[in-house]
């Protein structure tokens, strides 16, 4: 038997396992999936935990709930990928040989990469919400916070779900308004980008929204150090931003095993062919999800689109046929904007977020780049879709991997 080995059973790895399970000839292939943790977290839900909209139970399930019996699932830390021997070493010493390797080890925040962040006040007046622990600790802190300067800070790009920090800021505006202390809170959004978002067109809309919500935007801020004693951020060119409460999105990096195996770039992301999702260095290695170095957004929706194309490409690879160059960077994200409203943006490598309707061109129901209640409901419905449709590798009705331009103002 031959083995197709998937590293990481997060969003991308789970979708791939489900899709390949249906497509690969199982008389010939074993599909093995490895992850270090037994729990699967719905990470988009972390955003709502600090505001007590979701609990930990809402966002947690057992990984195996989403895996068919025919998949061999191993719960263990991956120690090393030995590309020269086509094998992977696990922490318990077990060796897994593979014919095809799919890397889906994701990305995580690394607070130690931001100078000074861990030195003073981490967990007291400086928090993250990109981890379950961080989101819970922040919820505790916000509960009895009386107001002051709240700074939301992105240390470096790329980060996963690049809209999540903005959504956090919008929800904070709503949360403090509801608590009756909005006038006592100075909200500031600090980013290394030149505006609120990675793409200029969406950025213009979102910059304006920040202004409307009385959030100060500090763009082009490249962090040098977090001075926890004086409670301020200092940029490389000596700009300073003071805080009472810091919500940090620290540097995001690919998994340590990628670095140990000599497979990543400076941030441990794996160099990947933009349209085929094959690794740049090895023919029989494919990469998807947050682990790639691609300029597409690091988002669950992107992993879903990639999985559709990668499944086909793996089947072509097995048949020794040329791969399809079809992944176009398609991403769509709901942006929660507070007070029961939201935005939806849809874009790819070449086309910026545009106005129009999604998923049915012209008809909708969800307005792109326009604030609406429907988009907020869409965001909440995403959790159901995530558990029941997306992770199982089933197609999301009416949504295609390649971006549709019909009905959109390009």
């Amino acid at each position, binding site marked *: 038997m031959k083995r197709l080995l998937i590293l990481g059973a997060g969003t991308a790895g789970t979708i791939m396992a489900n899709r390949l399970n249906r497509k690969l000839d199982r008389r010939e292939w074993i599909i093995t999936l490895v992850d270090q943790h037994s729990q699967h977290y719905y990470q988009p839900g972390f955003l709502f935990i600090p505001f007590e909209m979701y609990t930990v139970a809402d966002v947690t399930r057992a990984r195996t709930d989403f895996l068919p019996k025919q998949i061999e699932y191993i719960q263990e830390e991956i120690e090393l990928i030995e590309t020269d021997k086509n094998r992977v070493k696990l922490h318990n010493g077990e060796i897994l040989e593979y014919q095809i390797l799919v890397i889906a080890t994701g990305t995580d925040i690394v607070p*130690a990469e*931001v*100078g000074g962040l861990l030195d003073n006040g981490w967990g007291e007046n400086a928090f993250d919400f990109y981890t379950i622990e961080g989101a819970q600790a922040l919820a505790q802190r916000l509960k009895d916070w009386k107001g002051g300067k709240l700074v939301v800070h992105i240390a*470096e790009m790329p980060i996963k779900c690049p809209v999540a920090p903005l959504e956090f800021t919008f929800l904070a505006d709503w949360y403090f308004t509801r608590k009756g202390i909005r006038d006592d809170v100075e909200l500031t959004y600090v980013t290394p980008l030149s505006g609120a978002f990675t793409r200029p067109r969406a950025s213009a809309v979102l910059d304006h929204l920040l202004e409307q919500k009385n959030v100060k935007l500090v763009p082009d801020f490249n*962090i040098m150090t977090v001075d926890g004693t004086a409670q301020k951020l200092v940029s*490389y*060119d*000596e700009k300073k931003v003071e805080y009472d409460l810091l919500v940090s999105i620290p540097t995001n990096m690919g998994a340590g095993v990628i670095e140990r195996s*000599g497979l990543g770039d*400076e941030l441990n992301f794996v160099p990947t062919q933009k349209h085929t999702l094959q690794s740049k260095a090895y023919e029989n290695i494919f990469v998807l999800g947050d682990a790639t170095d691609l300029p597409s957004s690091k988002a669950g929706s992107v992993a879903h689109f990639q999985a559709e194309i990668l499944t086909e490409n793996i089947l072509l690879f097995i048949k020794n046929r040329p791969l399809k160059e079809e992944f176009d960077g398609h991403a769509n994200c709901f942006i929660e904007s507070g007070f029961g409203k939201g935005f939806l943006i849809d874009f790819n490598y070449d086309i910026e977020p545009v106005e129009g309707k999604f998923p049915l061109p012209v008809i909708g129901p969800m307005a792109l780049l326009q604030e609406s209640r429907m988009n907020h409901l869409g965001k909440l419905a995403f959790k159901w879709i995530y558990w029941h449709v997306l992770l199982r590798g089933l197609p999301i009705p009416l949504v295609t991997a390649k971006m549709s331009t019909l009905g959109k103002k390009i």
Partner: protein
Amino acid sequence: MNSNLDEIKKRFKNNEDACQKVVDIFALISNKTRFRILCLLTEGDFCVGDIVDTIQISNFSNISQQLRLLSMAGIVESRRDGKRIIYHLKDQRVRDVISYLHEKFLKR
């Protein structure tokens, strides 16, 4: 009055952007860690581990963060060599500035 003042004024009006670029480069250089990284890179290409060992700042991660900043600014570039990532000082103008400063201030 300097008879060239009008012409100088015109020139100054036009070179605001260029000046901003130069000031940005100074801002990138005018930090002890980054300055020392750049000085080291004028002597050859090195990996993060070697840079940390040579510059001897206890905070390892701070140096990689600064290297990424310099790399984003296009001053240094990185490449993979086996299991290590090697940094190279790419911007010849910055190399010249560092060499000049080295010549004037650091040479005994």
